[in-house]
Protein backbone atom coordinates (compact mmCIF):
# COMPACT_ATOMS: atom_id res chain seq x y z
CA UNK A 1 0.00 0.00 0.00
CA UNK A 2 1.14 3.52 -0.72
CA UNK A 3 -0.23 5.11 2.45
CA UNK A 4 -0.90 2.94 5.42
CA UNK A 5 -2.39 4.06 8.72
CA UNK A 6 -2.25 1.44 11.41
CA UNK A 7 -4.35 1.55 14.48
CA UNK A 8 -3.74 5.22 15.00
CA UNK A 9 -4.84 6.86 18.26
CA UNK A 10 -4.29 10.44 19.28
CA UNK A 11 -4.81 11.87 22.74
CA UNK A 12 -4.39 15.44 23.86
CA UNK A 13 -3.61 16.49 27.38
CA UNK A 14 -6.00 19.24 28.34
CA UNK A 15 -6.87 20.97 31.57
CA UNK A 16 -9.71 18.49 32.08
CA UNK A 17 -7.57 15.44 31.60
CA UNK A 18 -6.79 13.41 28.53
CA UNK A 19 -8.96 13.93 25.45
CA UNK A 20 -9.05 11.11 22.96
CA UNK A 21 -9.53 12.71 19.56
CA UNK A 22 -8.74 9.82 17.26
CA UNK A 23 -9.19 6.17 18.06
CA UNK A 24 -8.16 3.08 16.13
CA UNK A 25 -7.93 4.67 12.73
CA UNK A 26 -6.96 2.24 9.99
CA UNK A 27 -6.63 3.28 6.39
CA UNK A 28 -4.93 1.85 3.35
CA UNK A 29 -4.62 4.05 0.32
CA UNK A 30 -3.17 3.05 -2.99
CA UNK A 31 -0.99 5.15 -5.25
CA UNK A 32 -3.12 7.48 -7.42
CA UNK A 33 -6.28 7.43 -5.36
CA UNK A 34 -8.37 10.52 -4.63
CA UNK A 35 -9.58 10.08 -1.07
CA UNK A 36 -11.96 12.32 0.78
CA UNK A 37 -12.52 12.25 4.52
CA UNK A 38 -15.80 13.75 5.71
CA UNK A 39 -17.08 14.26 9.20
CA UNK A 40 -18.75 16.76 11.47
CA UNK A 41 -16.80 19.58 12.97
CA UNK A 42 -14.63 18.31 15.79
CA UNK A 43 -14.47 14.76 14.52
CA UNK A 44 -10.70 14.99 14.29
CA UNK A 45 -10.24 15.32 10.56
CA UNK A 46 -7.60 18.00 10.82
CA UNK A 47 -5.88 16.08 13.57
CA UNK A 48 -5.71 13.02 11.35
CA UNK A 49 -4.25 15.01 8.49
CA UNK A 50 -1.59 16.48 10.78
CA UNK A 51 -0.46 12.98 11.70
CA UNK A 52 -0.11 12.08 8.04
CA UNK A 53 1.74 15.30 7.37
CA UNK A 54 4.09 14.60 10.24
CA UNK A 55 3.27 17.88 11.94
CA UNK A 56 2.25 15.91 14.98
CA UNK A 57 2.99 12.39 16.16
CA UNK A 58 0.35 9.78 17.00
CA UNK A 59 -0.03 8.66 20.58
CA UNK A 60 -0.40 5.04 19.44
CA UNK A 61 -0.02 3.54 16.01
CA UNK A 62 1.76 4.87 13.01
CA UNK A 63 1.48 6.31 9.54
CA UNK A 64 3.60 4.86 6.78
CA UNK A 65 4.17 6.16 3.29
CA UNK A 66 5.70 3.66 0.91
CA UNK A 67 6.62 1.64 3.94
CA UNK A 68 8.54 4.49 5.57
CA UNK A 69 7.28 5.64 8.91
CA UNK A 70 6.28 9.30 9.02
CA UNK A 71 8.03 11.13 11.84
CA UNK A 72 8.45 14.69 10.62
CA UNK A 73 7.04 17.04 8.02
CA UNK A 74 8.73 17.05 4.66
CA UNK A 75 8.37 17.99 1.05
CA UNK A 76 7.45 14.49 -0.11
CA UNK A 77 3.97 15.39 1.11
CA UNK A 78 2.37 18.53 -0.26
CA UNK A 79 -0.10 20.25 2.02
CA UNK A 80 -2.83 22.75 1.33
CA UNK A 81 -4.30 24.31 4.45
CA UNK A 82 -7.83 25.45 5.06
CA UNK A 83 -6.78 29.04 5.52
CA UNK A 84 -4.59 30.71 3.01
CA UNK A 85 -1.03 30.13 4.03
CA UNK A 86 0.72 32.06 1.31
CA UNK A 87 3.64 34.20 2.40
CA UNK A 88 2.04 37.61 2.13
CA UNK A 89 5.30 39.46 1.44
CA UNK A 90 6.23 37.29 -1.53
CA UNK A 91 4.91 37.54 -5.06
CA UNK A 92 2.88 34.66 -6.41
CA UNK A 93 5.93 33.42 -8.31
CA UNK A 94 8.13 33.54 -5.20
CA UNK A 95 5.48 31.74 -3.20
CA UNK A 96 5.30 28.98 -5.74
CA UNK A 97 9.09 28.71 -5.81
CA UNK A 98 9.62 28.80 -2.09
CA UNK A 99 9.54 25.09 -1.44
CA UNK A 100 12.09 24.47 -4.15
CA UNK A 101 14.27 27.25 -2.82
CA UNK A 102 14.24 25.58 0.59
CA UNK A 103 15.41 22.40 -1.05
CA UNK A 104 18.28 24.15 -2.72
CA UNK A 105 17.14 23.80 -6.30
CA UNK A 106 19.07 26.15 -8.61
CA UNK A 107 17.34 29.40 -9.38
CA UNK A 108 16.72 28.78 -13.04
CA UNK A 109 15.29 25.33 -12.55
CA UNK A 110 12.97 26.36 -9.78
CA UNK A 111 11.78 29.38 -11.73
CA UNK A 112 10.76 27.19 -14.64
CA UNK A 113 9.24 24.56 -12.40
CA UNK A 114 7.15 27.10 -10.50
CA UNK A 115 6.08 28.83 -13.69
CA UNK A 116 4.94 25.51 -15.04
CA UNK A 117 2.75 24.80 -12.03
CA UNK A 118 1.43 28.35 -12.02
CA UNK A 119 0.35 27.73 -15.59
CA UNK A 120 -1.20 24.45 -14.47
CA UNK A 121 -3.36 26.34 -12.00
CA UNK A 122 -4.00 29.03 -14.59
CA UNK A 123 -2.30 31.89 -12.82
CA UNK A 124 0.67 32.64 -15.07
CA UNK A 125 -0.68 36.13 -15.57
CA UNK A 126 -0.53 36.85 -11.85
CA UNK A 127 3.05 35.73 -11.24
CA UNK A 128 4.11 39.18 -10.10
CA UNK A 129 1.04 39.93 -7.96
CA UNK A 130 1.06 39.92 -4.18
CA UNK A 131 -1.28 37.50 -2.37
CA UNK A 132 -3.46 40.32 -1.07
CA UNK A 133 -4.34 41.20 -4.65
CA UNK A 134 -5.82 37.76 -5.29
CA UNK A 135 -9.29 36.43 -4.62
CA UNK A 136 -9.77 33.50 -2.26
CA UNK A 137 -9.90 30.92 -5.03
CA UNK A 138 -6.80 32.27 -6.67
CA UNK A 139 -4.93 32.11 -3.36
CA UNK A 140 -5.83 28.47 -2.90
CA UNK A 141 -4.67 27.74 -6.41
CA UNK A 142 -1.32 29.32 -5.68
CA UNK A 143 -1.11 27.20 -2.53
CA UNK A 144 -1.79 24.12 -4.65
CA UNK A 145 0.83 25.15 -7.20
CA UNK A 146 3.31 25.67 -4.39
CA UNK A 147 2.58 22.22 -3.00
CA UNK A 148 2.79 20.60 -6.43
CA UNK A 149 6.03 22.29 -7.39
CA UNK A 150 8.02 19.98 -5.12
CA UNK A 151 6.35 17.05 -6.87
CA UNK A 152 5.13 15.41 -3.71
CA UNK A 153 4.01 11.81 -3.68
CA UNK A 154 0.77 12.80 -2.04
CA UNK A 155 -1.25 15.97 -1.80
CA UNK A 156 -2.92 16.60 1.56
CA UNK A 157 -5.70 19.14 1.65
CA UNK A 158 -7.62 20.39 4.68
CA UNK A 159 -10.94 21.83 3.56
CA UNK A 160 -9.22 23.79 0.87
CA UNK A 161 -12.38 25.17 -0.71
CA UNK A 162 -14.42 25.86 2.40
CA UNK A 163 -14.27 29.61 2.11
CA UNK A 164 -14.89 29.91 -1.61
CA UNK A 165 -18.10 30.99 -3.25
CA UNK A 166 -20.09 28.45 -5.19
CA UNK A 167 -18.93 29.48 -8.60
CA UNK A 168 -15.27 29.55 -7.69
CA UNK A 169 -15.64 26.28 -5.86
CA UNK A 170 -17.08 24.61 -8.94
CA UNK A 171 -14.24 25.73 -11.10
CA UNK A 172 -11.77 24.53 -8.49
CA UNK A 173 -13.47 21.13 -8.56
CA UNK A 174 -13.02 20.88 -12.27
CA UNK A 175 -9.46 21.95 -11.90
CA UNK A 176 -8.76 19.29 -9.27
CA UNK A 177 -10.23 16.50 -11.33
CA UNK A 178 -8.24 17.61 -14.32
CA UNK A 179 -5.06 17.80 -12.29
CA UNK A 180 -5.61 14.41 -10.76
CA UNK A 181 -6.25 12.73 -14.06
CA UNK A 182 -3.25 14.29 -15.69
CA UNK A 183 -0.66 13.80 -12.95
CA UNK A 184 -1.97 10.66 -11.33
CA UNK A 185 -0.98 12.06 -7.96
CA UNK A 186 -2.44 10.62 -4.76
CA UNK A 187 -4.78 13.06 -3.07
CA UNK A 188 -6.11 13.00 0.47
CA UNK A 189 -8.66 15.71 1.00
CA UNK A 190 -10.71 16.70 4.00
CA UNK A 191 -14.03 18.38 3.57
CA UNK A 192 -17.35 18.68 5.24
CA UNK A 193 -19.11 19.38 2.00
CA UNK A 194 -20.61 16.02 1.16
CA UNK A 195 -21.35 16.88 -2.45
CA UNK A 196 -17.79 17.95 -2.96
CA UNK A 197 -16.56 14.65 -1.57
CA UNK A 198 -18.84 12.58 -3.75
CA UNK A 199 -18.06 14.58 -6.84
CA UNK A 200 -14.29 14.46 -6.48
CA UNK A 201 -13.15 11.32 -4.78
CA UNK A 202 -13.01 7.69 -5.66
CA UNK A 203 -13.28 6.68 -2.04
CA UNK A 204 -14.70 8.38 1.03
CA UNK A 205 -13.99 7.82 4.69
CA UNK A 206 -16.79 9.05 6.92
CA UNK A 207 -15.58 9.87 10.41
CA UNK A 208 -17.66 9.88 13.57
CA UNK A 209 -16.99 12.16 16.50
CA UNK A 210 -15.82 11.90 20.07
CA UNK A 211 -13.58 10.08 19.62
CA UNK A 212 -13.01 10.26 15.87
CA UNK A 213 -13.27 6.83 14.29
CA UNK A 214 -13.83 5.62 10.76
CA UNK A 215 -17.54 4.90 10.67
CA UNK A 216 -17.89 4.06 7.06
CA UNK A 217 -15.82 3.68 3.95
CA UNK A 218 -17.62 4.25 0.67
CA UNK A 219 -16.28 3.43 -2.78
CA UNK A 220 -17.60 6.05 -5.22
CA UNK A 221 -18.37 4.93 -8.73
CA UNK A 222 -19.85 7.65 -10.86
CA UNK A 223 -20.62 7.21 -14.58
CA UNK A 224 -18.74 10.40 -15.41
CA UNK A 225 -17.42 13.46 -13.62
CA UNK A 226 -18.87 16.72 -14.77
CA UNK A 227 -21.49 19.16 -13.53
CA UNK A 228 -24.42 17.17 -14.89
CA UNK A 229 -23.56 14.15 -12.77
CA UNK A 230 -24.91 16.04 -9.81
CA UNK A 231 -28.43 15.45 -11.12
CA UNK A 232 -27.77 11.76 -11.50
CA UNK A 233 -29.58 9.56 -9.01
CA UNK A 234 -26.41 7.63 -8.16
CA UNK A 235 -24.89 10.90 -7.06
CA UNK A 236 -27.93 11.60 -4.93
CA UNK A 237 -27.84 8.21 -3.38
CA UNK A 238 -24.23 8.62 -2.33
CA UNK A 239 -24.96 12.11 -1.12
CA UNK A 240 -27.97 11.14 0.93
CA UNK A 241 -26.29 8.15 2.41
CA UNK A 242 -23.43 10.29 3.65
CA UNK A 243 -25.71 13.08 4.70
CA UNK A 244 -27.80 10.74 6.83
CA UNK A 245 -24.67 9.33 8.32
CA UNK A 246 -23.37 12.75 9.27
CA UNK A 247 -26.71 13.89 10.57
CA UNK A 248 -26.82 10.82 12.75
CA UNK A 249 -23.26 11.42 13.96
CA UNK A 250 -24.15 15.01 14.64
CA UNK A 251 -27.06 14.01 16.82
CA UNK A 252 -24.99 11.47 18.65
CA UNK A 253 -22.38 14.10 19.28
CA UNK A 254 -24.97 16.55 20.53
CA UNK A 255 -26.33 14.00 22.92
CA UNK A 256 -22.86 13.17 24.08
CA UNK A 257 -22.12 16.84 24.68
CA UNK A 258 -25.34 17.53 26.58
Amino acid at each position, binding site marked *: MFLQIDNLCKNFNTKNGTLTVLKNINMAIAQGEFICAVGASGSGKSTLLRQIAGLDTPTIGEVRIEGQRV*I*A*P*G*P*DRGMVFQHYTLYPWMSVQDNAEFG*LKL*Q*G*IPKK*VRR*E*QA*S*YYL*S*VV*GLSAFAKALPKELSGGMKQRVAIARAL*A*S*EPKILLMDEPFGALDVHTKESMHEFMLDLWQRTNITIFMITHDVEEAVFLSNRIYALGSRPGTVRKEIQIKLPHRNATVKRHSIFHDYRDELMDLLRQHGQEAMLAAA
Partner: protein
Amino acid sequence: MSQPDKPHSIQSLIKPRTMGSTVFWRLAEDIPRPLNLTLLITSLTLPLLIWWLITTFGKIDPKFLPSPGNVLEAGGRLWTSGDLLKDTVASLWRVGVGFSLAALLSIPVGVMMGSFPSIRALLEPLFGLIRYMPAPAFIPLLILYLGIGEEPKVTLIFIGVFFFNSLMVMDTVKFVPKDLIEATYMLGGNRREVLTQVILPHVLPGIIDACRINLAAAWQLVIVSELIAATEGLGRRISVAGRFLRTDEIFVGLIVIGTIGLTFDLMFQYLLQVTCNWSSQKR
Protein backbone atom coordinates in the same frame (compact mmCIF):
# COMPACT_ATOMS: atom_id res chain seq x y z
CA MET B 1 -5.96 26.11 -20.17
CA SER B 2 -3.18 25.01 -22.42
CA GLN B 3 -0.07 24.13 -20.55
CA PRO B 4 3.51 23.82 -21.68
CA ASP B 5 5.30 20.63 -20.90
CA LYS B 6 6.63 20.12 -17.48
CA PRO B 7 10.18 21.42 -17.69
CA HIS B 8 12.08 19.30 -15.22
CA SER B 9 11.91 16.16 -13.28
CA ILE B 10 12.66 17.74 -10.00
CA GLN B 11 12.56 14.65 -7.90
CA SER B 12 16.10 13.74 -8.81
CA LEU B 13 17.32 17.11 -7.58
CA ILE B 14 15.69 16.96 -4.19
CA LYS B 15 17.75 15.54 -1.43
CA PRO B 16 15.67 13.97 1.26
CA ARG B 17 15.86 15.99 4.45
CA THR B 18 14.44 15.04 7.75
CA MET B 19 14.13 17.35 10.63
CA GLY B 20 15.73 16.14 13.81
CA SER B 21 13.49 16.33 16.80
CA THR B 22 14.50 18.72 19.54
CA VAL B 23 13.23 19.99 22.81
CA PHE B 24 15.38 23.00 23.56
CA TRP B 25 15.15 24.41 20.06
CA ARG B 26 11.42 23.98 19.69
CA LEU B 27 10.12 26.77 17.54
CA ALA B 28 6.83 28.45 18.44
CA GLU B 29 5.80 25.31 20.29
CA ASP B 30 5.50 24.85 23.99
CA ILE B 31 8.39 23.28 25.81
CA PRO B 32 7.87 20.87 28.71
CA ARG B 33 7.06 22.54 32.02
CA PRO B 34 10.08 21.23 33.97
CA LEU B 35 12.50 22.50 31.33
CA ASN B 36 10.69 25.83 31.33
CA LEU B 37 11.05 26.11 35.08
CA THR B 38 14.70 25.13 35.00
CA LEU B 39 15.44 27.79 32.43
CA LEU B 40 13.50 30.42 34.36
CA ILE B 41 15.53 29.73 37.45
CA THR B 42 18.77 29.66 35.47
CA SER B 43 17.84 33.02 34.04
CA LEU B 44 18.09 34.67 37.41
CA THR B 45 20.69 32.56 39.14
CA LEU B 46 23.28 32.32 36.37
CA PRO B 47 24.01 36.08 36.25
CA LEU B 48 24.19 36.04 40.03
CA LEU B 49 26.67 33.20 39.94
CA ILE B 50 28.81 34.93 37.33
CA TRP B 51 28.75 38.10 39.38
CA TRP B 52 29.81 36.19 42.46
CA LEU B 53 32.62 34.43 40.60
CA ILE B 54 33.96 37.64 39.10
CA THR B 55 33.98 39.50 42.37
CA THR B 56 35.39 36.61 44.34
CA PHE B 57 38.17 35.54 42.01
CA GLY B 58 38.57 38.61 39.83
CA LYS B 59 40.26 40.83 42.42
CA ILE B 60 38.12 43.76 41.42
CA ASP B 61 38.02 46.89 43.53
CA PRO B 62 34.64 46.67 45.32
CA LYS B 63 34.25 50.38 44.56
CA PHE B 64 34.05 49.40 40.91
CA LEU B 65 32.01 46.26 41.29
CA PRO B 66 30.85 45.23 44.74
CA SER B 67 30.42 41.56 45.47
CA PRO B 68 26.95 40.11 46.13
CA GLY B 69 28.01 39.96 49.78
CA ASN B 70 28.82 43.66 49.87
CA VAL B 71 25.50 44.49 48.31
CA LEU B 72 23.62 42.28 50.71
CA GLU B 73 25.42 43.92 53.57
CA ALA B 74 24.63 47.41 52.31
CA GLY B 75 21.03 46.35 51.84
CA GLY B 76 20.89 45.09 55.40
CA ARG B 77 22.42 48.28 56.69
CA LEU B 78 19.94 50.46 54.83
CA TRP B 79 17.09 48.26 55.90
CA THR B 80 17.86 48.28 59.60
CA SER B 81 18.31 52.05 59.60
CA GLY B 82 14.86 52.32 58.07
CA ASP B 83 16.21 54.33 55.15
CA LEU B 84 15.52 51.67 52.58
CA LEU B 85 11.88 51.38 53.57
CA LYS B 86 11.45 55.11 53.55
CA ASP B 87 13.12 55.45 50.17
CA THR B 88 11.06 52.66 48.72
CA VAL B 89 7.79 54.07 49.98
CA ALA B 90 8.69 57.55 48.75
CA SER B 91 9.56 56.37 45.25
CA LEU B 92 6.67 53.95 45.06
CA TRP B 93 4.35 56.77 45.98
CA ARG B 94 5.76 59.14 43.38
CA VAL B 95 5.83 56.62 40.58
CA GLY B 96 2.44 55.33 41.66
CA VAL B 97 0.75 58.72 41.70
CA GLY B 98 2.47 60.02 38.57
CA PHE B 99 1.84 56.88 36.62
CA SER B 100 -1.74 56.46 37.81
CA LEU B 101 -2.65 60.01 36.91
CA ALA B 102 -1.02 59.65 33.53
CA ALA B 103 -2.74 56.34 32.87
CA LEU B 104 -6.10 57.63 34.06
CA LEU B 105 -5.90 60.57 31.71
CA SER B 106 -4.16 58.98 28.79
CA ILE B 107 -6.54 56.05 28.52
CA PRO B 108 -9.62 58.14 27.67
CA VAL B 109 -7.53 60.50 25.55
CA GLY B 110 -5.93 57.61 23.71
CA VAL B 111 -9.24 55.86 23.18
CA MET B 112 -10.78 59.07 21.88
CA MET B 113 -7.85 59.61 19.56
CA GLY B 114 -8.13 56.09 18.25
CA SER B 115 -11.88 56.29 17.83
CA PHE B 116 -12.38 59.72 16.34
CA PRO B 117 -10.17 60.49 13.36
CA SER B 118 -10.86 64.16 13.99
CA ILE B 119 -9.44 64.08 17.49
CA ARG B 120 -6.59 62.01 16.25
CA ALA B 121 -5.78 64.59 13.59
CA LEU B 122 -6.03 67.28 16.24
CA LEU B 123 -3.76 65.70 18.81
CA GLU B 124 -1.45 63.20 17.13
CA PRO B 125 1.08 65.63 15.62
CA LEU B 126 1.33 67.58 18.86
CA PHE B 127 1.69 64.49 21.01
CA GLY B 128 4.12 62.97 18.54
CA LEU B 129 6.26 66.08 18.86
CA ILE B 130 6.16 66.27 22.63
CA ARG B 131 6.83 62.57 23.04
CA TYR B 132 10.34 63.06 21.74
CA MET B 133 11.11 65.90 24.12
CA PRO B 134 13.24 64.53 26.96
CA ALA B 135 11.31 64.75 30.20
CA PRO B 136 14.37 65.88 32.20
CA ALA B 137 14.41 69.07 30.12
CA PHE B 138 11.23 70.10 31.84
CA ILE B 139 12.81 70.10 35.30
CA PRO B 140 13.74 73.81 35.39
CA LEU B 141 10.29 74.70 34.11
CA LEU B 142 8.61 72.39 36.60
CA ILE B 143 10.52 73.95 39.47
CA LEU B 144 9.48 77.37 38.19
CA TYR B 145 5.83 76.53 38.03
CA LEU B 146 5.36 73.87 40.68
CA GLY B 147 8.05 74.43 43.25
CA ILE B 148 10.17 71.78 44.85
CA GLY B 149 7.61 69.66 46.68
CA GLU B 150 6.07 66.45 45.42
CA GLU B 151 4.19 68.15 42.60
CA PRO B 152 7.08 68.62 40.15
CA LYS B 153 8.37 65.09 40.79
CA VAL B 154 5.01 63.54 40.15
CA THR B 155 4.42 65.81 37.17
CA LEU B 156 7.70 64.78 35.60
CA ILE B 157 6.69 61.14 35.73
CA PHE B 158 3.28 62.13 34.45
CA ILE B 159 4.81 63.86 31.42
CA GLY B 160 7.09 60.93 30.76
CA VAL B 161 4.18 58.50 30.66
CA PHE B 162 1.19 60.46 29.41
CA PHE B 163 2.18 61.08 25.79
CA PHE B 164 3.65 57.65 25.19
CA ASN B 165 0.67 55.94 26.73
CA SER B 166 -1.87 58.02 24.82
CA LEU B 167 -0.25 57.15 21.52
CA MET B 168 0.07 53.47 22.39
CA VAL B 169 -3.53 53.23 23.57
CA MET B 170 -4.58 54.98 20.39
CA ASP B 171 -2.85 52.27 18.39
CA THR B 172 -4.77 49.51 20.10
CA VAL B 173 -8.13 50.94 19.03
CA LYS B 174 -7.44 50.15 15.40
CA PHE B 175 -7.80 46.47 16.19
CA VAL B 176 -11.50 46.82 17.09
CA PRO B 177 -13.39 45.07 14.28
CA LYS B 178 -15.52 47.49 12.32
CA ASP B 179 -18.26 44.85 12.21
CA LEU B 180 -18.60 44.99 15.96
CA ILE B 181 -19.13 48.74 15.89
CA GLU B 182 -21.65 48.50 13.10
CA ALA B 183 -23.48 45.70 14.86
CA THR B 184 -23.88 48.04 17.80
CA TYR B 185 -25.31 50.78 15.63
CA MET B 186 -27.79 48.26 14.28
CA LEU B 187 -28.83 47.40 17.80
CA GLY B 188 -29.63 51.04 18.42
CA GLY B 189 -26.42 52.18 20.02
CA ASN B 190 -25.27 55.74 19.51
CA ARG B 191 -21.67 56.85 19.22
CA ARG B 192 -21.21 57.40 22.92
CA GLU B 193 -22.48 53.93 23.72
CA VAL B 194 -20.28 52.40 21.06
CA LEU B 195 -17.34 54.17 22.61
CA THR B 196 -18.00 53.23 26.20
CA GLN B 197 -19.62 49.85 25.82
CA VAL B 198 -17.92 48.37 22.81
CA ILE B 199 -14.60 50.02 22.00
CA LEU B 200 -13.49 50.45 25.58
CA PRO B 201 -14.01 46.86 26.73
CA HIS B 202 -12.55 45.56 23.49
CA VAL B 203 -9.31 47.50 23.82
CA LEU B 204 -8.93 46.73 27.52
CA PRO B 205 -6.26 44.05 26.98
CA GLY B 206 -4.33 46.40 24.74
CA ILE B 207 -4.60 49.17 27.30
CA ILE B 208 -3.33 46.96 30.08
CA ASP B 209 -0.42 45.95 27.89
CA ALA B 210 0.44 49.55 27.06
CA CYS B 211 0.30 50.48 30.74
CA ARG B 212 2.55 47.58 31.57
CA ILE B 213 5.22 48.86 29.22
CA ASN B 214 4.86 52.44 30.37
CA LEU B 215 5.07 51.56 34.03
CA ALA B 216 8.61 50.47 33.23
CA ALA B 217 9.15 53.80 31.51
CA ALA B 218 7.90 55.58 34.63
CA TRP B 219 10.52 53.85 36.77
CA GLN B 220 13.15 54.99 34.32
CA LEU B 221 12.34 58.54 35.39
CA VAL B 222 12.56 58.01 39.11
CA ILE B 223 16.18 59.12 39.38
CA VAL B 224 15.71 62.22 37.31
CA SER B 225 12.56 63.24 39.12
CA GLU B 226 14.21 62.83 42.49
CA LEU B 227 16.92 65.24 41.50
CA ILE B 228 14.32 67.89 42.33
CA ALA B 229 15.13 68.55 45.96
CA ALA B 230 14.19 65.11 47.20
CA THR B 231 15.26 64.12 50.68
CA GLU B 232 14.34 60.48 50.26
CA GLY B 233 13.58 58.03 47.50
CA LEU B 234 15.32 55.19 45.71
CA GLY B 235 16.31 57.43 42.84
CA ARG B 236 17.84 59.95 45.20
CA ARG B 237 19.59 57.17 47.05
CA ILE B 238 21.11 55.96 43.80
CA SER B 239 22.23 59.39 42.67
CA VAL B 240 23.76 60.28 46.04
CA ALA B 241 25.44 56.88 46.13
CA GLY B 242 26.70 57.53 42.63
CA ARG B 243 28.23 60.81 43.68
CA PHE B 244 30.08 59.26 46.57
CA LEU B 245 30.85 56.13 44.61
CA ARG B 246 29.03 53.88 47.05
CA THR B 247 28.54 51.31 44.34
CA ASP B 248 27.05 48.82 46.75
CA GLU B 249 24.17 51.20 47.48
CA ILE B 250 23.63 51.78 43.77
CA PHE B 251 23.21 48.05 43.38
CA VAL B 252 20.82 47.87 46.31
CA GLY B 253 18.68 50.59 44.73
CA LEU B 254 18.73 48.95 41.33
CA ILE B 255 17.80 45.56 42.68
CA VAL B 256 14.94 46.96 44.75
CA ILE B 257 13.60 48.87 41.74
CA GLY B 258 13.98 45.85 39.48
CA THR B 259 12.17 43.63 41.94
CA ILE B 260 9.33 46.09 42.46
CA GLY B 261 9.04 46.49 38.71
CA LEU B 262 8.95 42.80 38.04
CA THR B 263 6.32 42.32 40.73
CA PHE B 264 4.09 44.92 39.13
CA ASP B 265 4.76 43.39 35.76
CA LEU B 266 3.55 40.03 36.96
CA MET B 267 0.53 41.71 38.53
CA PHE B 268 -0.32 43.33 35.22
CA GLN B 269 0.08 40.01 33.45
CA TYR B 270 -2.22 38.41 35.96
CA LEU B 271 -4.74 41.23 35.57
CA LEU B 272 -4.60 40.69 31.84
CA GLN B 273 -5.37 37.03 32.23
CA VAL B 274 -8.20 37.58 34.65
CA THR B 275 -9.98 40.50 33.04
CA CYS B 276 -9.46 39.38 29.51
CA ASN B 277 -10.19 35.70 29.75
CA TRP B 278 -12.72 36.26 26.98
CA SER B 279 -9.95 36.95 24.55
CA SER B 280 -9.16 33.86 22.52
CA GLN B 281 -5.73 35.20 21.65
CA LYS B 282 -3.03 34.14 24.05
CA ARG B 283 -1.10 37.06 25.47
